[in-house]
């Protein structure tokens, strides 16, 4: 094992009294895709911040190609060819594509920019990813999330990386875009780049990685060849317990129709959708990113303006719904954008969880803080939220726990029809299993769930019925048993199955 490109031995890191890492070892060879898996809060982010130079370890050593590697900052790590692609896309939205790719490494003479050369190099990096046709002068913010990710990877490639760290690269990609990304990853691997691949999607890890290391509670607890491990074993290593049934079936009997949508039309992204949802039913909305799935649930909740169509909620017709009316009518909406829209990160768990029903916790406009805290404490216990107290800031929680707070808001109201947009995006396996359990429980109680997801196993595992959207249209809806992954993907892409 002397030919490791990057070797970490016994890395320790503490934040105050919290031991984030207490002995992590990891070896990545050149030309290898190495998966790092673990629950959120296991210490992966800390580890990656150390690798990318953002943090220095308290103890332990890093070696790059046999030499000690102690980057003072991300810039120095990058200069050594260790480049990180973050989970949260980090582009400057106002700058053009080429400027984003070349940012920090612009070719120049005495500070004078060589625009043509910069563009040529940006174009070359994009071409390696099969996106040489992108408009280099368009602002990066004008592209879809998938394309923005391509731009970000191009930026990493421009630096001729020796080690590329990818943190949840597919969490906001559709299946088709993820496939393209896998192709790129294999191509990079074959060129000798060492790739560290962090993901919660174990199916993906199985497909794309060569080796793996499992991190649990700040320690590396297992490593080996991917081919020799089963998904169930990985999960057991990660959570230290057997997760037998990730997707609990609700087994709910379907009741009367509670929500009926006819020819809903809202803006350019949603041209036509019809849908019925019954009591106790979990209905999935599948489709590529940009197919209008988010727009559908947003329009139903009154966040976007409906331009046509009829929404009937428990035999009452909603005209021009707005979120306030939607809450009052028993709808609950979980935004796909947890950090920017779903939650108020600087505020407390209590404030986040009870916001829509502050009225119930107040008298004459005065909030009864004790009552609010008690109620929030119940939700923290009920949902297994890892938090110190109801007054803790939501921003301090891990992604999975943040999502549970967002769900607590819907449960606390209480909503009868749950519009969940990518509820498990970017969260750990343990929290996922809990959220799945929760959704199934809702259905058993006779509540209804509309589940928007880009992750097919989740849709197939959870839903009674799956509707597929394509280019702003809800094109087909079938019982889950009548779909196959292949037929569903063809419906989403628009090719004959």
């Amino acid at each position, binding site marked *: 094992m002397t030919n490791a490109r990057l070797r970490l031995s016994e890395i320790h890191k503490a934040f105050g009294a919290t031991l984030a890492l207490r002995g992590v070892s990891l070896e990545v060879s050149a030309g290898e895709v190495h998966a790092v898996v673990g629950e959120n809060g296991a210490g992966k982010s800390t580890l990656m911040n150390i690798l990318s130079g953002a943090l220095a370890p308290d103890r332990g050593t890093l070696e790059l190609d046999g030499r000690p590697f102690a980057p003072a900052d*991300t*810039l120095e790590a*990058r*200069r050594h060819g260790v480049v990180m692609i*973050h989970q949260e896309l*980090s*582009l*400057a*939205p*106002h*700058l053009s594509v080429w*400027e*984003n790719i070349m*940012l*920090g*490494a*612009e070719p*120049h003479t005495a*500070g*004078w*920019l060589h*625009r043509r050369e910069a563009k040529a190099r940006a174009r070359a990096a994009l071409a390696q990813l099969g996106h040489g046709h992108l408009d280099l002068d368009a602002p990066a913010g004008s592209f879809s999330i998938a394309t923005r990710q391509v731009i970000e990877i191009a*930026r990493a490639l421009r630096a001729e990386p020796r080690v590329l760290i990818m943190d949840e690269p597919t969490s906001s990609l559709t299946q088709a875009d993820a496939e393209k990304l896998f192709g790129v990853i294999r191509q990079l691997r074959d060129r000798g780049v060492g790739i560290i691949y962090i993901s919660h999607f174990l199916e993906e890890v199985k497909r794309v990685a060569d080796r793996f290391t499992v991190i649990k509670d700040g320690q590396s607890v297992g490593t080996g060849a991917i081919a020799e491990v089963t998904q169930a074993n990985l999960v057991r290593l990660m959570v230290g317990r057997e997760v037998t049934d990730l997707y609990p079936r609700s087994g709910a009997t379907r009741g009367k129709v509670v929500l009926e949508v006819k020819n809903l039309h809202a803006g*350019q992204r949603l041209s036509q959708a019809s849908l019925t949802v019954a009591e106790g039913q979990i209905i999935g909305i599948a489709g590529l990113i940009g197919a209008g799935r988010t727009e559908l649930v947003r329009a139903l909740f009154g966040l976007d303006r409906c331009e046509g169509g009829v929404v009937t909620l428990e035999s009452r017709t909603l005209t021009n719904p707005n979120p306030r009316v939607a809450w009052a009518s028993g709808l609950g909406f979980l935004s796909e954008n947890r950090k920017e829209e779903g939650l108020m990160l600087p505020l407390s768990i209590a404030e986040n969880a009870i916001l829509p029903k502050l009225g119930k916790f107040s008298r004459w406009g005065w909030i009864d803080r004790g009552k609010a805290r008690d109620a929030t404490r119940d939700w923290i216990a009920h949902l297994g939220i890892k938090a110190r107290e109801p007054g803790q800031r939501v921003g301090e929680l891990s992604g999975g726990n943040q999502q549970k707070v967002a769900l607590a808001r819907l449960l606390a109201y209480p909503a009868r029809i749950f519009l969940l947009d990518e509820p498990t995006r970017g969260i750990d396996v343990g929290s996922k299993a809990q959220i799945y359990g929760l959704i199934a429980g809702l259905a058993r109680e006779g509540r209804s769930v509309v589940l928007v997801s880009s992750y097919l196993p989740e849709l197939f595992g959870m839903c009674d019925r799956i509707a597929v959207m394509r280019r702003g249209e809800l094109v087909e809806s079938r019982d889950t048993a009548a779909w196959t992954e292949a037929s569903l993907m063809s419906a989403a892409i628009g090719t004959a199955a």
Partner: protein
Amino acid sequence: MNARNLLAKLGPFIGLLLVIALFSVPTEVRGYFLTYANFKIILTQTVIVAIGALGMTLIIVSGGIDLSVGSTIAFSGVVGALLIQRGWPTAAVVGVVIVSGAGIGLLNGVAIAGLRMMPFIITLGTLSIVRGAAQLLANNETVNYDSSPINEWMTTPDQAGWSLPAGAWILLGLAVATALFLRQTVLGRHVFAIGSNEATARLCGVRTVRTKIMIYTAAGALFGLAGLMQLSRLRVGDPTVAVGLELDIIAAVIIGGASLGGGVGTVLGSMIGAFIMAVLRNGSGQMGWPTSVQQIIIGVVIIAAVFLDRLRQAK
């Protein structure tokens, strides 16, 4: 998309034409308003705000703000007047005044970037500190001096002739230099990157702290120069001058299409923004409208400009 881009670029221009057209209609002022002599007056009236707007464009594009401009202008004027009083040569006066402006900018930049404090709050503090310092330095009275070549920067020997005052040429040169800097240099593009997404800029190895300190310092130097222009116009060092001028300067940049959120803005836009306000003031003056009415009009124009910008960005 291209049509919208064009509209976005031409927006401030159209605004300027509209304002000029507005004052070209009433017969009582039309005759004089559109003359070259009046254009010269407007241009001269714009110089101080426009030079300030150059610095402010750098700051606003980088996602910051500077409220201490008016105070810096007064302070620089007082410093300049005191030095002239003591018989310093003009070149030294100009150099020291610009450096003193840059020094105030440096302090702002270090506090904002180095100590990571909010630009709004820091410069709200320096607004007061620098104004107080100017008054202290001037002993609470205007600083008089006999004469200086600086006095001639804002006038031409022949009031009606074609030649432009030195101040206008200095403004033009600085505007071209700032525009080239923002557009053609690596540092200039980093100003945009920081304003658009500072975390990303840092991640990509942009020296954000150093760049931000540089931005505030360079802007401070420009504000110092604007102070000299003010001195040239008043011909005394007045520590109470330019109160609230920062708002005019910020307004010029915003009317010119910059976003207070950072990442967006052009020198040309800011210059037109400054010009629009000067035209409004000049035209209103000729119409005999009181300053109270001018204030209201300028307020409406600022809101209208931002509203139009919002319309442009919405699909």
